[in-house]
C-alpha cells in the first residue's frame, strides 16, 4: 500500500511536467463534466420545482377517497373514523372548501376562497416549511385561521409578523342541510385569530390564489361548505351515496403506507387513489429528461476522455526511454501501469472538480439572466431552476474519474508493455 502511495506521488510529478498539456486536457474534462452537471441540475431543478410543494404539503402520503358505487360506500363521519383505524393512517379528514367567503380586519375587507385542513397535521410537522410567521393550527377547538401572504396587503398588513395574533371576521353564506332532502340559505359570522401566515408553493393553484385556511372542524359548521354534495342531493333525491362527503383525504404515515392504505380503502368499496401514484407519470417524464440530458453530457465527457487518451499516448511516446529506465532500475509492468493510470485519474479528478465549479458558476449566471428576463415578462417567483444534490456532485466527479481511468487503460497498458531494451536503445 505504501509502495502504491509512493508511486502515486511519483506520478503526480509526471502530471506537473507537461503543465500546459495536462491543464488543457483537464480543462476539456472540466467543460464536458460541467456541461453534464448543468444539464442534469436543470432537469433535477425542474423535478424539484414540481415535487417540492407536494412534499412540503405531505401530499405524497395522501390517499384521495371518493364515494364508492355500492350502497354502503358512503363517505360519512363513520367512514372517516373507519379509515383512521386502518394501520399506517395518521389521520383522515373530509374535503371542505368554500369558493366565496368574506373576511375583514378593521376597515379592510376581502372575498376569498377557503380550505379546511386537519389540526392533527401539526403533529407530523406538515405545512411547517410554508409558514412565514406564526404557527400551524393548535390542537384545541379555538377558531383559528391561516392567511396566505398574498392577502396581507388587502387586509392592511405590511408584514406576516404584523398579521399574526390579529382577529379576523369571517362571513359565510350558502346552502345548508337542515334534514335529508331539505336545505336553507344561511349566513354565519365567525371571529377567528390569525395564527400564521403561509406562502403557497409554486404550481399549487388553489393555495397560490390566496386561499384562507381554516381547521376542518371549524369549517364544517360554516354554510356553503358542501355545495357540491347539496347539488348532488338535489339531483339524486337524497340517495345514500349522495348523503356523504364528496371527498375524504386520508394521510398515511409514509408514501409506502399510502399504497397499502389505498388498497385497504378500495377493498371497503370506496374509490381510492394515492397521490404518489398520480405523480408517477410526471416523474417518468423527469427521469426520461434526466437520462436524455445525461446521455448528451456523456458524449462530451467521452470526447474529453479521448483527449486524456491522446495526452497519455503522447506522454508514453515522449517518455518511451524514461519508461525503459524505470524498468531497468526495478519498475515492474504494474508499477508503470500505476504511474500512467494515476496521471489519468489525476487529470479526471482535477477536471471533474473544476467542472463542478464551472457548472455552479454557469448555472448561477443563467438563473440570474432568466430571472431578470422572466420578471420583465411579468413572471415573478421563477424559483430555483437548477438544483445540485450531493449525489449529482459526487456522481459527476466519480463519472469524470471513471471515464478518465478507462481512457487511461490503453496508454497505461502500452507503457507497461514497453520493452526496456528497445526503449533504452531509443528505438
Amino acid at each position, binding site marked *: 500500500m505504501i*509502495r502504491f502511495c509512493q508511486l502515486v506521488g511519483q506520478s503526480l510529478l509526471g502530471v506537473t511536467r507537461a503543465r500546459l498539456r495536462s491543464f488543457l486536457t483537464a480543462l476539456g474534462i472540466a467543460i464536458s463534466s460541467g456541461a453534464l452537471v448543468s444539464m442534469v441540475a436543470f432537469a433535477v431543478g425542474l423535478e424539484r420545482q414540481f415535487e417540492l410543494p407536494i412534499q412540503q404539503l405531505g401530499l405524497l402520503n395522501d390517499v384521495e377517497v371518493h364515494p364508492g358505487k355500492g350502497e354502503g360506500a358512503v363517505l360519512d363521519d363513520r367512514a372517516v373514523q373507519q379509515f383512521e383505524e386502518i394501520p399506517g393512517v395518521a389521520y383522515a379528514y373530509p374535503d371542505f372548501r368554500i369558493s366565496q367567503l368574506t373576511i375583514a380586519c378593521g376597515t379592510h375587507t376581502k372575498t376569498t376562497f377557503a380550505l379546511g385542513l386537519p389540526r392533527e397535521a401539526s403533529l407530523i410537522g406538515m405545512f411547517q416549511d410554508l409558514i412565514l410567521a406564526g404557527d400551524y393550527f393548535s390542537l384545541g377547538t379555538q377558531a383559528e385561521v391561516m392567511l396566505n401572504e398574498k392577502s396581507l396587503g388587502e387586509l392592511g398588513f405590511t408584514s406576516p409578523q404584523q398579521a399574526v395574533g390579529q382577529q379576523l371576521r369571517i362571513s359565510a353564506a350558502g346552502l345548508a342541510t337542515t334534514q335529508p332532502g331539505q336545505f336553507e340559505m344561511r349566513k354565519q359570522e365567525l371571529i377567528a385569530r390569525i395564527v400564521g401566515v403561509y406562502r403557497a408553493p409554486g404550481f399549487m393553484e388553489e393555495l397560490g390564489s390566496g386561499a384562507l385556511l381554516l381547521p376542518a372542524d371549524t369549517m364544517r359548521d360554516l354554510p356553503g361548505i358542501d355545495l357540491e354534495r347539496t347539488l348532488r342531493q338535489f339531483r339524486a333525491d337524497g340517495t345514500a351515496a349522495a348523503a356523504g362527503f364528496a371527498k375524504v383525504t386520508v394521510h398515511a404515515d409514509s408514501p409506502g403506507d399510502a399504497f397499502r392504505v389505498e388498497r385497504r380503502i378500495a377493498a371497503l368499496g370506496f374509490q381510492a387513489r394515492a397521490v404518489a401514484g398520480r405523480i408517477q407519470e410526471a416523474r417518468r417524464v423527469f427521469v426520461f429528461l434526466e437520462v436524455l440530458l445525461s446521455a448528451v453530457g456523456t458524449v462530451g465527457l467521452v470526447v474529453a476522455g479521448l483527449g486524456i487518451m491522446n495526452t497519455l499516448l503522447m506522454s508514453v511516446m515522449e517518455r518511451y526511454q524514461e519508461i525503459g529506465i524505470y524498468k531497468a532500475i526495478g519498475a515492474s*509492468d504494474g508499477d508503470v501501469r500505476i504511474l500512467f493510470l494515476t496521471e489519468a485519474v489525476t487529470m479526471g479528478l482535477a477536471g471533474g472538480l473544476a467542472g463542478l465549479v464551472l457548472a455552479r458558476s454557469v448555472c448561477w449566471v443563467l438563473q440570474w439572466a432568466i430571472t431578470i428576463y422572466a420578471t420583465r415578462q411579468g413572471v415573478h417567483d421563477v424559483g430555483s431552476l437548477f438544483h445540485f444534490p450531493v449525489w449529482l456532485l459526487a456522481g459527476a466527479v466519480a463519472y469524470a474519474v471513471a471515464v478518465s481511468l478507462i481512457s487511461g487503460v490503453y496508454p497505461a497498458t502500452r507503457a507497461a508493455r514497453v520493452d526496456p531494451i528497445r526503449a*533504452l536503445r531509443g528505438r
Partner: protein
Amino acid sequence: MLTEPEIAVRNLCRDYEVGGAQVHALRGIDLEVQSGEFVAVVGVSGSGKSTLLHLIGGLDTPTAGEVVVSGRDLNGLSSKQRALFRRQAVGFVFQSFYLVPHLTAEGNLRLALTFQGTFGERRNRLAVEALERVGLAERIRHRPGQLSAGEQQRVAVARAIVHQPRVLLADEPTGNLDHATAFRLLELLRQIQAESGMTIVMVTHDEELVSGFCDRRVRLRDGVIIDSISAA
C-alpha cells in the same frame, strides 16, 4: 574449495529478427564471473557486448542457454519476477546516464528506491549516503541539466549502488566522457568494488582505458568470446 560463481552464463544465444533477417547477436556464450570480480567485456560495436549485459541483468531473455546470477536462474522468470530480480540483485549504469531529467540527483535515487520498496526517512538517508559516496554531497539538489557529464554519470553510479546490489552492470559508462573524467569514474568503480566486494561487469570498447582497472578482460567478436585474459 570451489565456490559458486556470482554470474554463470552457459551456452547463451540471442537471436533478433531485423527487417525479416535473422541476426545472431550471441552464439553460445559461456562465462563465469566470481564474486567481487571486476570483468571488462570488450569488443567492437555490434559484437554482442550490450546484449550479453542485458541478458545478465534480466532486461532481456535469451533465445537459448542459461543465465544464473547470485544463485538465481533467470530462465523461465516472468516479467514481474525479472523486475523483482532487477530491483534486488543488480544495478545498471548506462552510457547515456539515463537520469530522469525533471528530478534532482537525490530525486533520481529516491525514485529507484521507491521502485525497490524503500520509503520514508530510510530512503532519504540511503540516497544522500550514496551521493556522498560518489563525491556529490554538494550536488544532491541539482537536476541532471545542471550537472556536468561526469557528475551525471556519478549520479547514475550512485543510483545503481543505492540499494547495495551484489552485481553492478555498466554498459559503456565512459562512452560519453572525456579521458580524464572517464579515468576518474573507473577509479570510483574500482573503489566501490574494493569497499563493498561488489561484482562488476563492464562493457566497453576502450580496451586500453579499462585495462588498468579490471581483474579480467573478456573479448567478444560476432557474438562469441574469443579470449579471456586475467590482469597480471
